[in-house]
Each structure stands twice: as structure tokens, then as C-alpha cells.
């Protein structure tokens, strides 16, 4: 199924409100919504169910990289068996964090600060708009938090490029740099998830599936 088309930018890109006169301008600290903490242990069993459904749809990448096989013996000694792909992507995020802290400190903080200030209501409104664009409700997403749903929708938006092999934050920043105007609500969700220490939100869900398939299929 081709990815959903983005409507005109005026609708998808919500405006940011600044200034004392704006009524919706609330610089309140984002509270960790209780619903998401409840649902996170639930996501694991439901994700296994949706695993089976998604595995049928996802296709094995056409270029099976020989790197995971080569790196396996060296990684076998590790106590926490992380697949080489996740390791490399995690290295990419750490190196990104180092890089962003050194060079683009002002720029990165600028847009991330903006994202931090975005209120929950705006994120929910954005998601409601996305859901209203569809004719039927989404299936197999009952057990996911709204944050996870937003992130997965961002993963599958092919206009920002492939979601595999690149951390979500870096993909968002790359799309921003290319002038594709990714929605700032997604950055807000990413920043929030990072603040909560949720390592699973770093890379695309599809990436985790494919990585586990590659390393598990001995």
C-alpha cells in the first residue's frame, strides 16, 4: 500500500504560538502521561502478536549485508547479545549526540528547545488530524501509546527517506536540513521519549524487526 499522501502544508504543519497575547501559549512542563507508563509493559506482549502480522508484510532487505555475520563471533562474548545493527545505530546516536553537542549546539538546542515547549494538547491535536484523514481506523495498534503511534507513522512516511539504518532523531534532522518540513510534533515526541529514557524509541520499529530477523535466522 503506498504511504498516505501528505495534504497541503498549511494543515499538516501546526503553527507555533508565541507572545503574551496568544491564548494557547502555555509554557508548562510536560507531565509524563500516566496512560503511557501503564501501556509500556503491555506493548511487549501485543507487539509480539503484531510481529507475526508485520513479518508477513515486511520484505527481507534485498542487500543482505555480510557485516552482521562477520561481526557475530566478536560480539558473541558480550553478555548482552545486541545485534550488530542495533549496536552500530546506537553508536551512531552517541556519536550524533557528541557531534551535536560539540558543533551544532546552538542550532540543535534551538529546534529541540522549541520542541520541548510544545504542549501535549498540540501533539494530540496533530494526531487527531492525522486520524481524521483516514477513512477507517488503524488496525493492530490498539495497545500502543499515542507517542509510539506518532513515531511509527513518521517512520512510514517515505517522503523523508527510508527509516531503516538511521536513528529517528537523525532522520528528522536530516529531513529538516533538506527542507522537507517534517512536523515538529514528531520531534517533540522524540525529545519526550528520550527524556523518559526510552531507548526503544531511538530507532525505527521496522529496523528492530529486520535486525532481529537477520541475526535470529541462523
Amino acid at each position, binding site marked *: 500500500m503506498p504511504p498516505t499522501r501528505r495534504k497541503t502544508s498549511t494543515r499538516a504543519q501546526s503553527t507555533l504560538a508565541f507572545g503574551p497575547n496568544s491564548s494557547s501559549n502555555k509554557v508548562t512542563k510536560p507531565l509524563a502521561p500516566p496512560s503511557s507508563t501503564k501501556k509500556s509493559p503491555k506493548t511487549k506482549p501485543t507487539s509480539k502478536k503484531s510481529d507475526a502480522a508485520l513479518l508477513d508484510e515486511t520484505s527481507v532487505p534485498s542487500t543482505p549485508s555480510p557485516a552482521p555475520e562477520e561481526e557475530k563471533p566478536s560480539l558473541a562474548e558480550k553478555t548482552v547479545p545486541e545485534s550488530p545493527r542495533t549496536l552500530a*545505530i546506537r553508536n551512531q546516536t552517541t556519536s550524533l549526540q557528541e557531534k551535536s553537542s560539540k558543533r551544532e549546539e546552538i542550532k540543535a538546542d534551538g529546534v529541540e528547545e522549541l520542541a520541548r515547549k510544545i504542549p501535549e494538547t498540540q501533539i494530540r491535536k496533530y494526531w487527531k488530524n492525522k486520524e481524521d484523514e483516514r477513512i477507517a481506523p488503524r488496525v493492530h495498534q490498539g495497545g500502543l501509546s499515542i507517542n509510539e503511534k506518532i513515531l511509527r507513522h513518521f517512520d512510514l512516511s517515505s517522503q523523508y*527517506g527510508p527509516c531503516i*539504518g*538511521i536513528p529517528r532523531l537523525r532522520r528528522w534532522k536530516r529531513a529538516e*536540513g533538506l527542507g*522537507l518540513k517534517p512536523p515538529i510534533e514528531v520531534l517533540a515526541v522524540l525529545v519526550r521519549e528520550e527524556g523518559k529514557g526510552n531507548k526503544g524509541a531511538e530507532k525505527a520499529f521496522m529496523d528492530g524487526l529486520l535486525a532481529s530477523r537477520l541475526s535470529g535466522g541462523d
Partner: protein
Amino acid sequence: MEDDDADAFLRPPSDEKYSVIERTPSSYNPLHSFDLAKGDQKHYQQQYGDMYFLRLAKLKPAVEELAEEAWGDLEIAGESVRRVDRVLDVRQGELCWVAGTVYMDMPLKPNILDDISKDHWIAAPPPREKYISPSGQDQTMLEDESGRLRLIGTPLQMNMLVTGCIIAAMGTENANGDFEIIDMKVPDLPRQPQRWERDEGSVALANGDGKSKLKEHKERREGSKVALVSGLCINGDEGDTLTLDLLMEYLTGEACGQATQQDVGKISRLIIAGNSIAEGNPLHPRAELLDKKPSKKYGYDSAAYNPAPTIRFDDFMATLLPSIPITLLPGEGDPANVSLPQQPMHPALFPRSRNYASEPGSAEPGWLDSVTNPWEADIDGWRIMGNGGQPLDDVFKYVEGNERLDMMENLLRWRCGAPTAPDTLWCYPFQDKDQFVIEECPHVYFVGSQPAFETAVIEGPTGQTVRLIAVPKFKETGELVLLDMDTLEVEIVKFEVFNDK
């Protein structure tokens, strides 16, 4: 030249005081666009799909702008042309235009199955010169992130297309599902910087009162030339030596008479554009390697490694370096990495010439500048871009004929230095930016290791002019290209050994 030289030699020594001829200094400001991160920072876990996405994202706005200008208010048979966002949105019978990446589906392209057959049978089929199938089985497709569309129509025969170039095609979908093209547009040449633009910009940033210094810069660099050579193919034994020695003597100003030496003094830099060392011996097939027992040898295994070519090349450069700065690009046969962009050859390969290279980690380019392939720099204010020949040789395999200058022109007009990467050309999986996209139009574009010397000037839509130079292989033709840095005119110096046959 003849009169002067005829009197210059075979004369008794004279008391005339000859002034020392000085070499014109070169104003050199290289760009590091193709430098890759080193060590741990270089990742290979990403896929090549990112590269195609980046290329399309960068070039789609440019090509759409051109297409909008050309077809915006076009009407054919009463129907106006509509713009379509995605490739799969074209509807049958509707006149529309869409932008995307070209993909050539050629059954004769190198296939992974050939490698597998090499394992099972004795010999693989020999590498093909061209991928074009004689029976017309090749298909041209237009692709973007939504899908693919087969293209047919007369503009395909008239325009050169390879996998990876971004075009905008106008036409309609027919009953078979093929998109019949009526017209197509390519991004064309990008913006060309003014001469000295980058140098002036950096000087202005460095010191506020830069005006007096600028004048000094400009006045000093009059009348200089740059020498380009490629395909030295040194293999350390016999036949190289004489023509190579002639080249050395010419460049150091030891050959010929006063007039020629004055001319040689104007050459401010030598650019060696790839393939300096002859191709090494092919690797033994896997079965043989396994059988060989690793015997203890001190030093290196002379059956597997022959140091003579590198030593000879090092001697060649070390003779030239005290007198002329050299820029060294790696080529297909050189000891550098295989995938584009090839990283600079390590100075450790050249123990004698290493003394002229810059210190590791310093920002200033040394007298010997070992650079990447492809490469761009500002020499005497002009933007020069070039490569060692691999991208052009790969484009050659996709199209009919041998019009190398046409292919070079098309590389610039497609705004992509290596469009067939990563399809049939090995390259690094870029994830943040496709480095091969040409963002600023060079003034000079050279490609090394070509079969013959060719040159032309092409023009762009907003007044850009580019001098194209195909540098021939020195080993075969003995030709050295001299580029005049004031007029961008090119001349050839040919070195030949008289063959009494």
C-alpha cells in the same frame, strides 16, 4: 623554439650571466568535499536507498523549477499539462509531468549470480565492455519513493540517460501502463561561482580590512599554467623509463632551450589524475589460496607483492617535488580503496616524497597534496573539479558510442558526478548528503585515464562556461596537458621516443 635551441647547445661556454628562471607560485585552495570520516566514525550499516533519496531530495526542486517554466502553461491538443507529485499518481490518458530518478533495467549489467558461477565453474564470463543488450531488452524506468514507471518514447533515443540521473518527464500513460514521453528536462548546470569568490570570501572573513591584501593576491597570479597528466601506469620495469624521464626533465626545466624553459617556469602545479601505478597482479582464486601453506618469510612475500612500481613512482615524484607542487589523485589501479570516493593515498607509501607532504592533522595542504578521487579545488581562483576516470568509464558502459565529451557534459548537466553509483559503481553509502551532487558549477572539469585527449567548452543557461578536458593515458599516448589559468585554453605537450622501425 627551434632557433633558440639550435644555438643553445654545442657551443663553447660563454660568460653571459643567465638569470635564474623562477617558477610561478600557485594559489591553491582545495575543498574537502569528498573526505570521509576515519576509523570508527565511518559506518557501513546503512543501505544505499538513502543515497537515492538524498539525490532526489536535492535535485528535484531544481528540475521541477525548470519543468514548471517550460511546461507550466503548455497546451497540447486543447489539454493543459498538469504537475503530478508522485510517479504513481499518473493517470491513463491524462497529460502530466513528473520528476523522478531514472533506472535502467539492463539484463547484461553485472549480476551477483556471475560471482556465484565463478565458484562453481572454472571461469566467469569476461567483463563486458557495454551493458547495452543488442536485442533491445533494456528498459528505462522512472522511479521515486512511491514506485516505478516504465518510460517509452522518442526523447529516450535522443537524450543520454543512465541509472541515477534525475529528470522531469512530460507525457501520458498509455493502455499498456507505459509512460509515453513527449519531452524531458534535466537539472542543467548549477550556479557557477565567480573567479576568486571563495578565496575572497575567506579573506574577508579573516581580516576586515582585506582590500590591500586582495590586490596583492590577484596581481601575483598572472600568467600561470597547470599541468595535467594521468595514467602513468608505472610498473617498475623496462619500457617506462625513457618517456617518464623526458617528462621529468621537461617539468623540472632541464630539457630544451631558454624559451621553453621560460614557458615551463609558468607551470605552477602538476595534477596527476589517477592510475599512476600499473594494475597489480590479480588475486589468486580462492582454492589456490587455501592450499598454499603460509611459509615463514622475513619482510614481505615476494610472490604476492612487488614493491618496484611504488618505489619507481616515489622516485619520480621526489625528483619533481623540490621544484613543483604536485596534487595526487588515486585512480582505479592505485593502492587506495576501491569504492568511490577514493580516499587520499597514504603518504607512507612514498617514503621519499613524504617529506614534502603536510603533517598529519594539519589544515594546510602540503607541497605534495594527496587528495581524494573525485576532487575539487580553487586554483588561481578558478573552481576545478575532476576525477580519476571511474565514473565516466561506468557511464560509457550504459550508452552507445564513445563520445566522451558528451558524457562529461551530461554528467555536469545532470548535476551528478557519479550517477551510476551505487548501481554499478562501488561507493560509500552516504546517509546525510550525497556528495556526488554537483552544487556549484566548476570552471574546469577534467577526467583522467581516457583513451584520447579531447577538450571543449560548454555553456549553461545562466551564462556558466565550463572547460571540459579528457586527459589521456600517458603510458599510451605520452601526452601532457597544459591548462592556461588566465584564458582557460588548453595545449598538449607530447613526449615520444623515436622508434626505429
